[in-house]
């Protein structure tokens, strides 16, 4: 009885096809995700994947994996990546390039900014429905917080708090003005 079921299960999906992008901004690039919703067999493996391709000076907004660890492998180009652990320490602050692999543990916040014409990567995640939460952007944790929590938490004015909440319209990819993004030793 498994001929009609398991044996017919689709096991392959192409992630290099921008037409099936989940996040797309012409000037910045695209991101596609593969999870148990669009490849059901992943619910058996309890894995998911993400494919990203961004242009120079495009930034993936700082975010964290809510329910998964991730292994990020660079397939093309370069990016400057910063990563912060649960103690608020910057644990990675380098340029990463093609052929390199880095692990992003659950909860660690990470920002990526392309520093070559095109930066492309594949990310494997240890949850069949891996979720992220972003620190900045229209669907970020900061937008979800009341102004009072932000003003009291960071001791900033309501006006500044509104800018923190509402200035960045994008959800995942945004543009940057380029230039150096890290100064000296990470804050410990």
């Amino acid at each position: 009885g498994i001929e009609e079921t398991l044996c017919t299960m689709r096991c392959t999906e192409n992630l290099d096809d921008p037409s099936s992008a989940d996040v797309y901004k012409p000037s910045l690039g695209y991101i596609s995700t593969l999870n148990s919703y669009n490849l059901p067999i992943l619910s058996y493996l309890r894995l998911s994947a993400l494919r990203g391709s961004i242009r120079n000076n495009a930034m993936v907004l700082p975010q964290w994996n809510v329910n998964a660890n991730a292994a990020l492998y660079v397939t093309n180009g370069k990016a400057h990546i910063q990563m912060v652990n649960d103690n608020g320490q910057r644990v990675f602050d380098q340029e990463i390039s093609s052929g390199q692999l880095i692990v992003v543990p659950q909860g660690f916040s990470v920002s990526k900014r392309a520093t070559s014409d095109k930066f492309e990567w594949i990310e494997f995640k240890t949850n069949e429905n891996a979720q992220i939460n972003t620190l900045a952007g229209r669907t970020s944790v900061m937008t979800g917080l009341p102004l009072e929590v932000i003003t009291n938490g960071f001791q900033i004015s309501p006006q500044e708090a509104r800018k923190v909440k509402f200035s960045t319209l994008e959800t995942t990819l945004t543009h940057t003005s380029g230039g150096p993004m890290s100064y000296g030793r990470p804050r410990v």
Partner: protein
Amino acid sequence: QWPNECQLDQLNALEPSQIIKSEGGRIEVWDHRAPQLRCSGFAFERFIIESQGLYLPTFFNAGKLTFVVHGRGLMGKVVPGCAETFMDSPVFQQGGQFGEGQGQGQSQGFRDMHQKVEHIRCGDTTATPPGVAQWIYNNGDEPLILVSAADIANNQNQLDRNLRPFLIAGNNPQGQQWLQGREQQPQNNIFSGFAPEILAQAFKIKLETAQQLQNQQDNRGNIVKVKGPFGVIRPPLRRGQGGQQPQEEGN
């Protein structure tokens, strides 16, 4: 689990092993390396939030259930991808026009919008998945006391068998003493690890404001004292909930 972790020949009642004091209250942590907690896979904490105290947004690497032992307050959880469904009414000017102000949000004429805020009272039990930032404010006159049990043995915890708080705001000058290698290190919030330039670019804000997000000169801790009104958008209390009348709605 390590082998023999549940070979418990003698059990005893446990007390908190560390107390993290803050401006607006304290957090008491049980040492989850104690044999019976290690066997059960639980990490256990007690939060005592003073009146007008705000426990700043924090998320963990494990799901947890929290029980309100005493007092009442307001609680918010920011669930990834959920909309800001709490929005206050637009600001109208003479002639019915929306108010014009600075900043993109304000130009839309509302003061704020955010995700759901709930009233909590003693007896309430609330579940918080891993990675979901939660904040709690004590709007009562008595201390708000909550206890929470996190299941660090659950596979939703993809890290090691330690409960790791990730601070969105605030900090913990005492550090996470129960974690080896962190005994003497203060814990800072997530923003403090990023270069301010990256924050400024990500939020499209001034560099000074980005540095403010890092709470660098701030030693208030993770539960701060709110000075003045705490005007988050919230529904009226149910009649009879704690015997209070529903809050008067402004017109």
